[in-house]
């Protein structure tokens, strides 16, 4: 199926991909490193594995970025 990840179309081979596997396939090894929006709604990190994606879903990974001073 086709989904959009951070503004870019992605083809997913799995029929019922869950959010956690999509995180992993996008090289986000530690799910705590990002906040995740699915179709504009935030998903709790505890729900990543249980959230099944559908055709056309829009996923945004928002990365923690803490640098600034040092």
């Amino acid at each position, binding site marked *: 199926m086709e989904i959009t990840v951070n503004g870019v179309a992605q083809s997913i081979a799995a029929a019922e991909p869950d959010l956690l596997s999509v995180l992993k396939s996008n090289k986000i090894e530690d799910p705590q490193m990002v906040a995740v929006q699915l179709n504009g709604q935030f998903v709790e990190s505890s729900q990543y594995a249980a959230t099944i994606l559908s055709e056309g879903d829009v996923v945004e990974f928002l990365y923690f*970025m803490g640098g600034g001073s*040092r």
Partner: protein
Amino acid sequence: MIDFTTEQLNRYSRHILLKDVGVEGQVKLGRARVLVVGAGGLGSPAALYLAAAGVGTIGIVDNDQVDISNLQRQIVHGTKDIGRSKVESAAEAMRAINPDVEVRPLATMLCADNIMEIIKDYDFILDGCDNFPTKFLVNDACVMAGIPFSHGGILRFDGQTMTVIPGESACYRCVFRQPPPPDSVPTCSQAGVLGAIAGMLGTIQTAEALKYITGAGRLLTDTLLSFDASNMDFRKVALRRQDDCPVCGARPTITELTDAEQTVCALKK
């Protein structure tokens, strides 16, 4: 109300020419008070441009000293400043650019006990700190005090920023609920950062501060702007206030400030 000297009219002429700023906007800048958190990568360009812009009162808070490894990006400091207090070094550079502005160097570390007392004297806070506990502290304190602020973060070739108007737009905790576990997200001192990225992001944050004060344009509220300068890709992600946000939601669970564990010092060495 308009009491600019000829010299000031010349100094600020490029602002005054702008339809959305003008003399009125410049007067607002002169009356405004902005606090810069961190005299580092983001705080350096912010401090310089805020001073150049004629923001009347600029506080700058940092408890660190200038190190030679800072100079690749922290352009408010020079080689001669190595070992000096960062805020004293920054204040000198700011006053040299514009003697009109009142610079308040605060050589302290923001913490739960002092942040409310410090931020209450400012109209806008520009967060350029280097660690998550302080970023969350700045967010929570600004939300509680109702003071608008700009969040900024940089790493490697990447930057992100959002502007928060408490009570109106999404806050940092609407997006990121709590600091990431220690060591899960690298810092600039661990992973590096391209020096100019600090300038790119710090000037975006400063533009937001100037826009907020003058009322020009549309702010980066309810929006996370992020960029990857390795390809110069810029993206905006729309955000909205979360009803269940622990600090700005309908039933906040965070009602007083606490110091989260400071991991940055352990990571730094």
